[in-house]
């Protein structure tokens, strides 16, 4: 099915990705992530001693602070903070540093669609940069169901507002390279990277559309996780040369 998008992408094509790490000097880890014109900056401070009130001191605590591009933090931002916190908690190994708090500050530099997935990707890379122990990466994708029924990936702001009746933000684990034999990491016959860490949807879609989104999202997350892997390998070799 041919779909024309403003920027001439095909429906499954992501916008150009860019990621650089260790860009802030004071933070323990930082990353900037851009996906087309959407750009997000994430900084990680910690682990610091002590957990906040009402948190389990037997585990590490993760705190997310969302800074919008302009204006004050409102209800949508609170929701983003909650989703980010829960998502990152499930990828980090919280038992390594019990009774500590790690703060992640997410600064939106520019919002041109797919903001939450970009923020999740940025935060994840910043955590890697800070050396926080993690089980695997989280790879976030935004899928949109258009009014005419087709599904597109990684929409721009314009597309989000005009054409779409519903969208789904999906977060998957990255594909694992393992020394274990093929298939040993499968759960119920599905590879681990097919499991959903986080799913958030807005708008009405049929159940079938949702499963189609899942399928498209999984395909895209493979590409994204390849990008992340390359990016991490490249920068680690760079820094080892410099050091």
């Amino acid at each position: 099915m041919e779909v024309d998008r403003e920027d001439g992408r095909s429906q499954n094509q992501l916008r150009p990705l860019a990621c650089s790490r260790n860009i802030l000097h004071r933070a323990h880890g930082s990353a900037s992530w851009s996906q087309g014109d959407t750009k997000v900056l994430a900084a990680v401070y910690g682990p610091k001693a002590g957990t906040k009130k009402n948190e389990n001191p037997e585990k590490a605590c993760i705190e997310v602070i969302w800074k919008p591009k302009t204006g004050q933090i409102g209800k949508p931002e609170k929701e983003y903070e909650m989703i980010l916190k829960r998502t990152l908690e499930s990828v980090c190994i919280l038992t390594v540093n019990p009774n500590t708090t790690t703060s992640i500050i997410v600064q939106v530099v520019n919002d041109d669609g797919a903001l939450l997935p970009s923020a999740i990707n940025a935060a994840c890379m910043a955590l890697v940069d800070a050396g926080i122990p993690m089980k695997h990466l989280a790879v976030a994708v935004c899928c949109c169901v258009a009014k005419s029924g087709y599904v597109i990936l990684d929409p721009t702001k314009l597309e989000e507002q005009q054409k779409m009746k519903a969208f789904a933000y999906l977060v998957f684990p990255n594909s694992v390279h393992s020394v274990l034999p093929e298939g040993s990491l499968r759960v119920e016959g599905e590879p681990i990277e097919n499991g959903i860490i986080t799913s958030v949807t807005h708008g009405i879609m049929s159940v079938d559309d949702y499963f189609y989104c899942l399928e498209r999202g999984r395909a895209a997350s493979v590409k994204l996780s390849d990008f992340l892997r390359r990016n991490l390998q490249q920068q680690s070799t760079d820094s080892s040369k410099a050091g």
Partner: protein
Amino acid sequence: MGLPNASGDLSTEVEVDAFRRLFPLRFYEKHLLESIRPDARPLGRARETTIALGAVASANGSALAKIGSTTMLAAIKMEVMTPSLETPDEGCIGLLPLAARFPVSLSLLKTPGRPAEAAPVVAKQLSDTILSSGMINLKELSLVSGKAAWMAYLDIYCLDADGALFDTALLSAVAAFSHLEIPVVSLNDDGKIVLSEEQGLSDREPVNKEKRKINLSSVPFSLTCVLHKNYILADPTAEEESIMDTIVTVVLDSSSQLVSLQKPGGTVLAYTSAIQDCIALTRQRVKELQKILEEAISGMEVD
């Protein structure tokens, strides 16, 4: 946490309550093996649900929804506003001030902090769900095109919290909208909308003769499930939510369209089959809730 097997030896020695507090996860897993939950429910069964319509007489529409012991009171008050220029013949749902208000008391629960922290998030999810479900046709809230329209302020108070906060909030909101009765109003000499009977304007033509009820087109209902290993527990209590941290909330409307599927993180990864199971459980639950709501409404009509 110390020795992983410490609980195994203790389970025969200590009292049930002590075991439950010390090793909550073990306690639940022992139950799950038998496919039953500590409150004697099977895994897929929701708690007893009741709806009482018209709980508050000072509001135009109100409902008290109870799922297990989670209790929410929703009430709608209708006020008049001048519609915006872009949408001259549409009313508005007062979702801006909508906040699932949790009284201070609930921020001091035994699992402290949770509802207070959850309040803005539940409120945001709720307004997203109600707006995007298209349950209410905003055009029905219009009074005089371009001049006056209804603003339906929806306020929800959580009187008691024991898990499944979003489900209860949505149910109470939906029930309050179905109980809503719009007062008869007319335009007075100052160009203001006033209640017809009270101002002695009953001889005048009311502005809204026929629009006394709002037609709810596709009503959304939701079910929250907790995932733990391969188990799916429908309609969790607060205890279950705090012990097993992977929560999936599915919202379906009456024509089985997916309105929202929320899974904010959690240690368990949801695979396609688990998602399918959750959706199937929600389908069943939607039927149950529809029936409960219909019964509540027909019960009102008899009186």
